């Protein structure tokens, strides 16, 4: 196939969507109003675990302006249980979007109301009487797995939603023979993404047209259509999902959970019903994430070479990680990727996923790769310290080498390409590592401010192709030539802030010799686009870019055939450049002229020879050339296509008196293969890293042991502000992937994966004089002081009254 000259791929093109978004002319779901529209509000459970003894909605139903008041029992008559989003050997509970006999978490919707205004709907909530019989709750992961724990689903016999494990190599022997064996317990707390736009849904059931239209804020309109159709047992082709501008997703908007409630209200009333969640609802029941404990055992030789890894992860998916959202799967991904970018001789892993009385668990930037990264990267720095090696040197000795790709990791995945050592070397240069360590030595002990630097390396498996779940294995897209020579790209991929509305134009412009302004990306309407799966698993630059580039190439080849026929020349000699198809040194036909010829003057019959495939548009199906669901001789499968990588560093100053951590400097070196738009890539790195810093320092769903969530507003659930984050330095290594059309790799999650480990490593480095070992996140000032208090040196220096 003709090779295109790259002109737009690699350019820091300004984002096409920003004109409307930054001037306030974006159109989000809540901006949409239709005649006759009602507004929904939901009564939510105040208890984490309770039996619903009775629900009396008669007083609310009687209020003027209230059009529907529905309970779980009502709902059961009209719909089925929530359709599963994932079931890979998992226990799938039968649950509804409105609680029926039991509530499983604080904030679970119990009654839904549709009224003339949101005000009236919320007023009416106060007229509903629910009688609960409170049951014992369990929130802690290990408590949920302990014998005798309160059971969410008694028919299961325990609280285990899924369990899995694998072993490769002589694990026990390796540990028995090892020079050093290190053990770690590393938990991480529960936090999640925070989109500026929360969940929003406007459902309209049109009985006269037998059609359900759902506008909603989602990352995956096609998947939502399927899940809604399954939940309502409604013909899928009679459901249309429209996702307009989306104010952030981060993995949180990959299901049809509460979104089905406005659909039900619309079916019940025959009128459009809109629900836009409040921030409180988002914190109570928007998808939550993280929440796990790792036990790690690592065998290392005396010269600092990793030998064996024996790991166990216990995950907590709240009330459910299969139907409400697909949270359970991330712990399987975590187990498969805990070996990270390093080489091993023996590996054993076990994972156990617990349900508990917390909100449902979904995806959030990482989906297990973050879970895999955190314990190992903290362990790497601690082990380096114990071995008397620098954290960088210890990592270097154990990285997969740049000449070893494709490299099959011991757990099964095939790593496509990379240069991990170069990423780390560039990072040390970017952050001036040696200078920081000198400054640390010169200033330590001179004031209460302790300087520290931490590094973490990462793998970002991107483009997951997971069997038996919505995160499946293909992408379909259409590239269409219009009569006037412009091009439409029709894709199921949703722009959720990552900029695909712009980057896909860059890709297609290069393939067809156009400018990005000659191309428009159409997305967000299930009745306009092919059934593509959407953005998750950093799959855009793996699946979708490859799919669309291939579609454009095929369309171009078909157009060349048409032109070659007109000119009576060889198609192989033609190129597409500057908006035209060109015979080098000879004739030229613009795409507008060609589009006109094909469609109008004279039209296809006069210009398209019989042997040419569709010159109007090409719909292409792309799937991974490397993923495999057939287990190899060791029982291993391969789910991910590309393996972006990188390293990052955080420099902190810890105030040993107050415990406050100030982030002084952040640097990231990323390798996502061929870069389509450097500005967008750096924006992703910045935003993702800040989310990780938030998780490391302040973000936390604070549940007590009764399952009460204490922080349900943004004055108590804290995110980093501009004042909490320094400028972030970025640099890149480019190792093109051999498995994608353009050599691109995903890059949406990598920078969120690293910060927690880098932060812990930085704080432990800063507080080395006190021998602090972080055992819990987030590192609030209070937790830092609690850690310091265990040091007698600190108590002598800083304890009040000392």
């Amino acid at each position: 196939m003709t090779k295109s000259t790259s002109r737009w791929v690699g350019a820091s093109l300004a984002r096409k969507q920003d004109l409307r978004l930054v001037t306030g002319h974006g159109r989000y779901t809540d901006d949409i109003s239709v005649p006759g529209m009602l507004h929904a509000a939901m009564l939510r459970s105040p208890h984490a675990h309770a039996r619903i003894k009775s629900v009396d909605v008669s007083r609310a139903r009687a209020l003027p302006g209230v059009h529907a008041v529905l309970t779980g029992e009502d709902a059961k008559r009209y719909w089925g249980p929530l359709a599963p989003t994932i079931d890979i050997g998992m226990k799938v509970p039968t649950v509804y979007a409105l609680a029926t006999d039991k509530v499983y978490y604080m904030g679970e919707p119990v009654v839904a109301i549709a009224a003339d205004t949101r005000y009236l709907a919320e007023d009416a909530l106060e007229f509903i009487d629910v009688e609960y019989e409170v049951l014992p709750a369990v929130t802690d992961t290990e408590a949920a797995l302990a014998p005798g724990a309160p059971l969410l689903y008694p028919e299961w016999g325990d609280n285990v939603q899924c369990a899995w494990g694998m072993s490769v190599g002589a694990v026990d022997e390796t540990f028995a023979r090892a020079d050093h064996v290190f053990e770690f317990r590393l938990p991480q707390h529960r936090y999640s993404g925070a989109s500026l736009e929360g969940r929003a849904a406007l459902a309209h059931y049109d009985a006269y047209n037998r059609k359900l239209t759902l506008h909603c804020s989602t990352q995956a309109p096609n998947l939502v259509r399927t899940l809604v159709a399954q939940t309502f047992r409604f013909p899928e082709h009679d459901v249309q999902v429209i996702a307009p501008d989306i104010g952030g997703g981060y993995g949180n908007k990959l299901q049809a959970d509460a979104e089905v409630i406005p659909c039900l209200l619309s079916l019940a009333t025959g009128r459009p019903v809109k629900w836009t969640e409040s921030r409180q609802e988002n914190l109570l029941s928007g998808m939550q994430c993280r929440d796990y404990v790792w036990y790690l055992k690592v065998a290392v030789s005396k010269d600092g070479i990793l030998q064996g890894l024996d790991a166990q992860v216990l995950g907590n998916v709240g009330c459910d990680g299969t139907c409400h959202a697909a949270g359970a799967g991330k712990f399987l991904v975590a187990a498969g990727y805990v070996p990270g970018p390093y080489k091993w001789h023996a590996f054993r892993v076990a994972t156990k996923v617990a349900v508990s009385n917390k909100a449902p668990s979904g995806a959030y930037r990482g989906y297990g790769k973050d879970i895999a990264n955190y314990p190992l990267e903290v362990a790497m720095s601690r082990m380096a310290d114990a071995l008397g090696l620098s954290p960088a040197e210890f990592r270097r000795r154990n990285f997969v080498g740049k000449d070893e790709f494709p490299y099959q990791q011991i757990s099964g995945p095939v790593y496509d390409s990379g240069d991990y050592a170069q990423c780390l070397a560039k990072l040390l240069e970017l952050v001036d590592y040696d200078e920081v360590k000198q400054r640390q030595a010169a200033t330590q002990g001179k004031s209460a401010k302790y300087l520290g630097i931490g590094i973490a390396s990462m793998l970002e498996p991107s483009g997951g192709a997971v069997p038996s779940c919505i995160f499946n294995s293909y992408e379909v897209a259409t590239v269409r030539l219009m009569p006037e020579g412009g091009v439409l790209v029709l894709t199921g991929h949703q722009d959720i802030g990552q900029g695909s509305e712009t980057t896909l134009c860059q890709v297609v412009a290069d393939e067809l010799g156009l400018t990005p302004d000659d191309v428009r990306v159409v997305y967000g309407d299930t009745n306009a686009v092919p059934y593509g799966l959407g953005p998750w698993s950093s799959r855009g630059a793996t699946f979708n870019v490859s799919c669309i580039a291939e579609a454009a190439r095929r369309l171009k080849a078909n157009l060349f055939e048409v032109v070659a026929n007109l000119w009576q020349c060889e198609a192989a000699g033609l190129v597409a450049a500057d908006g035209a198809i060109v015979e080098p040194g000879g004739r030229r036909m613009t795409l507008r002229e060609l589009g006109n010829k094909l469609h109008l003057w004279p039209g296809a019959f006069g210009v398209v020879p019989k042997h040419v495939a569709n010159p109007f548009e090409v719909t292409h199906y792309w799937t991974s050339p490397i993923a495999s669901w057939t287990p190899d001789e060791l029982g291993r499968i391969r789910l991910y296509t590309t393996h972006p990588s990188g390293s990052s560093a955080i420099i902190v100053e810890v105030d040993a008196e107050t415990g406050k951590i100030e982030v002084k400097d952040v640097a990231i070196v990323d390798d996502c293969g061929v870069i389509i738009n450097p500005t967008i890539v750096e924006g992703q790195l910045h935003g993702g890293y800040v989310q990780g810093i938030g998780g490391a320092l302040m973000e936390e769903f604070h549940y007590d042991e009764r399952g009460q969530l204490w922080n349900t507003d943004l004055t108590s659930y804290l995110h980093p502000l501009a004042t909490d984050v320094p400028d972030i330095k970025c640099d890149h290594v480019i190792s093109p992937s051999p498995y994608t059309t353009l050599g691109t790799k995903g890059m949406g999650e990598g920078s969120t994966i690293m910060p927690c480990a880098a932060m812990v490593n930085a704080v432990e480095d800063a507080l080395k004089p006190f021998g602090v070992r972080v055992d819990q996140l987030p590192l609030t000032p209070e937790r830092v002081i609690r850690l310091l208090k265990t040091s007698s040196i600190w108590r002598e220096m800083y304890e009040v009254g000392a």
Partner: protein
Amino acid sequence: MKPKPFDYVRVDTLPALFSALAAHDNAKIIAGGQSLVPMMNFRVAQPEVLVDINGVEALNHVGRDGDWLCIGAMARYQDLIDSPLVRESLPLLSEALGHVGYPAIRNRGTLGGSVVHNDPSAEGGVALCCLGAEVVVASAKGERVVPIAEFFVTTYLTDIAPHEVLTEIRIPVPLPRSGSAFRELAKRVGDFAIVNVAALVSVGAGDKVSAVSLALGGVAETPLSFDVGPAVIGHPLDAARAAEAARLVDALSDPQDDNVAGGEYKRHLAGVLVKQALLAAYIDAMAKGA
């Protein structure tokens, strides 16, 4: 996240305000609305009538009356921060109010509203406690003047009746050779503090401390003053004296666990900030010359 239905009355004079308050049982005054409106949206506050005093010119003043600075109930944070009069006569108040929320909150919120609301770590309340302020509470029946420490009853509760309004805050201007400092630790810039400390130190002959006033927020149900005179009066203030003062505060306070932080940590933090604030206030006083 929508309030219960409520009526709205706007008044321009104090008499009109008094009659509006008299006419309704469950009325609430709205000034800047920075605490009240979120509480209404959460339905924690459910007034039947909002009486808007933004138009009452008689409440919008900042002026000096002899040795007192008088601040009307409608004076907004940012106006107080920007006021040269406040900056010169009460630098502690200027410094403290600079820690309140974000620009949008400071542009709208009022010191009077914050005092009546009485969040235990509100910067204004802590500074006013340290400065020994008084508040003027008025109703149709007349005025009464209440020392700030008595006005703060407990968290979110003050010595004010439903038919009354706080009209003015009066603050004694400190002695000439006085210095002050405000220190706080919040999880993020603009958040309510975990603990905050206001210190006012006067020095006399031989650079010895002649008077001291100290108030803390976040350690009790209201902002609280502590008498650390025994530790520092009559001596130059050094690190050892400051530490002694911190021990006094520690012995007198018993902060409880809450949603922001645990009592044990607050106790530790109070000690750190008391030392820092006292030393900074002393240095500030010394800079004022002999």
